[in-house]
């Protein structure tokens, strides 16, 4: 049994038991709320890591997908009066996929460094559009509150504990799905593109199509995280499309460990926990973030994951 499996199993067990252990205590809600944030941001960062660590596309605009998921969910519920959670989330996923295809199309055609800039630009464009709110749909910089879904299969999704387990389930399933994808033929081609694009091209694969598809896949998972976040927080705010959120994906993944899928979840957990604890002490949380980026680059370029679990990554 590798260290990784043991740690993973233990973590899962803790996660499952947490609400039960906390039930009735004063800070149950607070901790669970935080834990859900960690899981959803972890999912979001996992989606980013899929694109960066396995395909080699460094996106600095993942907020575009996250925010799309959040806003589509919010708009449908608040403006469209569609309250069926699965329907709304499904729509959010489709929307994210579409945005992913567009961004992916662009990203696959520019050079590897320009991808950073282009994805950033796309996210900013969406951000500005939502802020400007030309048709009065998004409510501009106030965000869109009142995102309350109807009960689903008898479950009250506004209940913290219920949502906690929902998020946990989604996270685990998403992880398994992404692992499956990376091991599929599609995933192998993507890995090949990352390692040696020219050779893959000569083998007859249309690289741009694969890259576009990869971005779309990543977008769907990121959008899922966004949609669930909107349901969880019951509001969709423009920040979900901002560069800070894009940067968060990068931070969680690079801290936790790129190319590992689980590392980002770890990173998300650490950063969110630290933010809670430290933002009372530091006037400027962002300075800490900036310093972490710098320290990472010099001391932990692979993130924490390879330090904790130094086995060779399975491809």
């Amino acid at each position: 049994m590798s260290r990784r499996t043991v740690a993973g199993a233990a973590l899962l067990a803790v996660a499952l038991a947490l609400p039960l252990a906390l039930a009735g205590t004063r800070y149950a809600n607070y901790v669970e709320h935080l834990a859900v944030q960690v899981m959803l941001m972890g999912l979001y960062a996992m989606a980013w890591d899929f694109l960066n660590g396995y395909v080699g596309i460094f996106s600095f605009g993942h907020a575009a997908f996250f925010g799309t998921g959040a806003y589509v969910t919010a708009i449908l519920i608040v403006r469209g009066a569609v309250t069926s959670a699965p329907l709304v989330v499904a729509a959010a996923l489709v929307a994210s996929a579409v945005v992913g295809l567009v961004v992916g199309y662009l990203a696959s055609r520019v050079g590897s460094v320009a991808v950073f800039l282009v994805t950033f630009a796309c996210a900013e464009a969406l951000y500005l559009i939502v802020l400007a709110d030309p048709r009065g749909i998004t409510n501009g910089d106030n965000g869109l509150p009142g995102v309350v879904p109807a009960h689903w299969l008898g479950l009250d999704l506004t209940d913290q504990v219920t949502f906690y387990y929902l998020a946990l389930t989604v996270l685990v399933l998403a992880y398994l799905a992404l692992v499956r994808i990376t091991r599929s033929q599609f995933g192998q081609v993507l890995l090949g593109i990352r390692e040696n694009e020219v050779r893959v091209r000569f083998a007859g694969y249309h690289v741009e199509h694969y890259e576009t598809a990869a971005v779309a896949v990543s977008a769907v998972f990121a959008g899922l995280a966004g949609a669930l976040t909107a349901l969880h927080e019951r509001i969709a705010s423009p920040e979900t499309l901002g560069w800070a959120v894009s940067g968060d994906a990068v931070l969680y993944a690079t801290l936790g460990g790129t190319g590992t899928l689980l590392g980002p979840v770890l990173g998300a957990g650490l950063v969110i926990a630290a933010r809670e604890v430290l933002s009372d002490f530091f006037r400027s949380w962002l300075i800490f973030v900036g310093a972490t980026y710098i320290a990472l680059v010099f001391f932990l370029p692979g993130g924490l994951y390879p330090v904790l679990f130094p086995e060779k990554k399975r491809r």
Partner: protein
Amino acid sequence: MIFVLQVLNGLTIGAIYILLASGLTIVFGLQGIVNVAHGVFYMLGAYLAIDLYPRIGFAATLVVVFLITGALGLVLELVGVRPLVRWKRHGMQVLVLTLGVAIIASEVTKLIWGPVPRLSEVPAALAGATTIGPIVYPTYWLFVMGFTALFMTLLALAFYRTTLGILVQSIALNSEIAQAMGTNAPRINSLVFALGTGVAGVAGVLAGPILSVYPTMCFDLLMILFVVVILGGLGSLLGIVVSGILIGLVNAFGVAYLTGTVGNILAFAVMIAVLIFRPLGLFGRAGILK
């Protein structure tokens, strides 16, 4: 008449974009890295100008800011970028590093100078308006345009006529072979990087009276800057001149006829449209060209 004024506005804004973009795009052409902290030097220039101008006058401010932001840029390059390039970890790592620097700088600026935006003064010597035929236009804005035009001309001359310029081109074309020909690429790269940040600082001084000065300006302008650089083609001087002017115009007309943020969105739309047909930008190619 209004049309002409808007064109002039666009050219002025475009001039600032061009000044800033030149540093970014040349450094990319040379080392293949993106300096996300480029906007920080611009911001620093703007803030320093507010404090310095009343004391030492405009011309001196330009020089001092250039030296300060250039020196700071040199430090960043030597301490941060060079080791990463040497460990062959550039690209994404430099990006993350400079991003960290930018975030810290922005926050520190907010802490020191406060979050409230400011507008710096137009230098007395350039205040007022100039009349050209039927057009009356602020003198300072004309100055900014002229300054940029002069700068870009000098830059082009430096690239194509001087030995140093040829060395720089050779590094951009084939850094390995340039070094095998005895070119001290690391030193030249550092020099160019520092010049780029110095110019960014100067751009900040110039832009102060035109755009407002606030702690997140390093990021907001960076966004447009990226559009300019990508649209023009990474590593192309001619590219940024053309795209700088284009985006400046788009912005000016966008702001005038539609609301402010839409102007920015238009810029993105233009970039995306061009990228679909020319993924490398208007003039993108390996190596620097005019």
